[in-house]
């Protein structure tokens, strides 16, 4: 009778620890996955913040440089590409496109001293530099969370859970796009 009791207790202990181990692994993956999604939405936030500055910037530049029509068209195209982007890779490319036209837009100002000296343009330049800096910060944080997720999800006990519960096997990094790491406020 007493033996049976001990066997029962040991079985309960083993089951409990197995449950705990399972719970730990599973919850860790959920947590890391959540963190990646959270930091991705932060990236989208700051990218959107930069996009929201574009109309204002275009209006300001238009006021001084009317005949840069091609450039304004490119800006519109880049924005619509961003609106159509779905995956991380597409958004990365679209954000890179926007960075490109933005730096050209700022470069144009070099030819128009009046524009360059206007208070509105200076403010926009500050805001753009701030937006770029925020993107850099959030990109770093996102890549850190991706790194944290990938290193766990690819290692042994967790990979079983990844397969079993259809977690993402690997999260994509957000690469630094050419031009976007250079704040546009630099002196040319």
């Amino acid at each position, binding site marked *: 009778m007493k033996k049976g009791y001990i066997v029962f207790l040991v079985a309960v202990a083993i089951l409990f620890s197995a449950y705990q181990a399972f719970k730990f692994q599973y919850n860790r993956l959920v947590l890391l996955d959540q963190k990646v999604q959270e930091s991705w939405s932060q990236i989208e936030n*700051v990218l959107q913040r930069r996009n929201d500055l574009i109309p204002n910037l275009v209006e300001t530049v238009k006021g001084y440089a009317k005949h840069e029509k091609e450039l304004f068209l490119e800006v519109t195209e880049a924005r619509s590409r961003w609106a159509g982007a779905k995956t991380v890779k597409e958004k990365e490319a679209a954000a890179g496109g926007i960075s490109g036209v933005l730096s050209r837009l700022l470069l144009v100002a070099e030819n128009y001293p009046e524009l360059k000296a206007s208070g509105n343009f200076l403010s926009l330049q500050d*805001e753009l530099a701030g*937006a770029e*800096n925020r993107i850099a910060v959030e990109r770093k944080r996102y890549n850190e969370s991706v790194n944290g997720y990938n290193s766990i999800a690819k290692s042994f006990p967790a990979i079983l859970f990844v397969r079993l519960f259809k977690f993402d096997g690997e999260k994509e990094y957000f690469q630094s796009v050419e031009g976007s790491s250079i704040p546009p406020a630099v002196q040319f």
Partner: protein
Amino acid sequence: MRKFFVLTLILFSVLPCRPQNALPKPDGFINDYANTLAPDEKEALESLAASIEKETSAEISTAIINSLEGKNLEDYALEIFNGWGVGKKGKDNGVLILVSISDRQMRIEVGYGLESVLPDAVCGRIIRNVMAPQFREGNYYRGIYEAITAMGETIKGEPPASATSNTDSIKFIGFLAVWHAFLILFSFLLFHIAGVIIYFAAVTPLVLTALASENGSQYQAAMGLLAVVPFFIVFFMGMAAPFIFGILSWRLKKKYKKSWKEHIPSYLKKPMSRSGFSGSSRGGGRGGSFGGGSSGGGGASGSW
């Protein structure tokens, strides 16, 4: 019982440990690592920042360094900001002015909570119109003083940020519950039911004050007292215990001759070790002088 004390001692001695990193340690609001400010100038800036903090709870800190040593200005400003935790936790209402003398570069890093009050354009204007012209003349003190004043005025013009977030206060109430359970246990061990009665007599008015408080600061004051006052009461009970028991045992001895010990519960017979008290007062203390705010890279940079 002794084991328990040792355990709490170990627990509390381990808690204040923090991981070391390469960041310089902040000493007040103004941290002049490049020795550009005279002592009285530093004093004036310090009191200016302190008065802004008193009025608005926003923390405007300054770091003056000799050189970035190749580091990126924006990255380093963010590292210092989040490392020091400038601004109040939950409000994130901090500002860091980072000046690198030999690089002739500066940055105003703004915490999340102040981004709407001090947008990048405003910071950029302060850098261009206030700081850079003064710095060019070598007037670092004037430039920083006027920048802090300008930012303080802007922050004062805005309605104050809402009080600490809900999760924070829930955490604090949880902490209070555990803390009080602890102290009630101690007072029970010291004076049995009488100790618990004394304890509640002291705590109840504070709880009532907290419940009846009309505004946030009153509530916070009552909660703060709730965390501190019971500790002192239990501490004084602990100090008084040997005297009271001494008198008691002396009188009981007189009354019962030698058999008085049988009338005292067994847990009071051993003298209590009170070494646990001195360690536990450190719980909940803060490391630096800043409140633990964070920033996501808001602000502006400039050069002179």
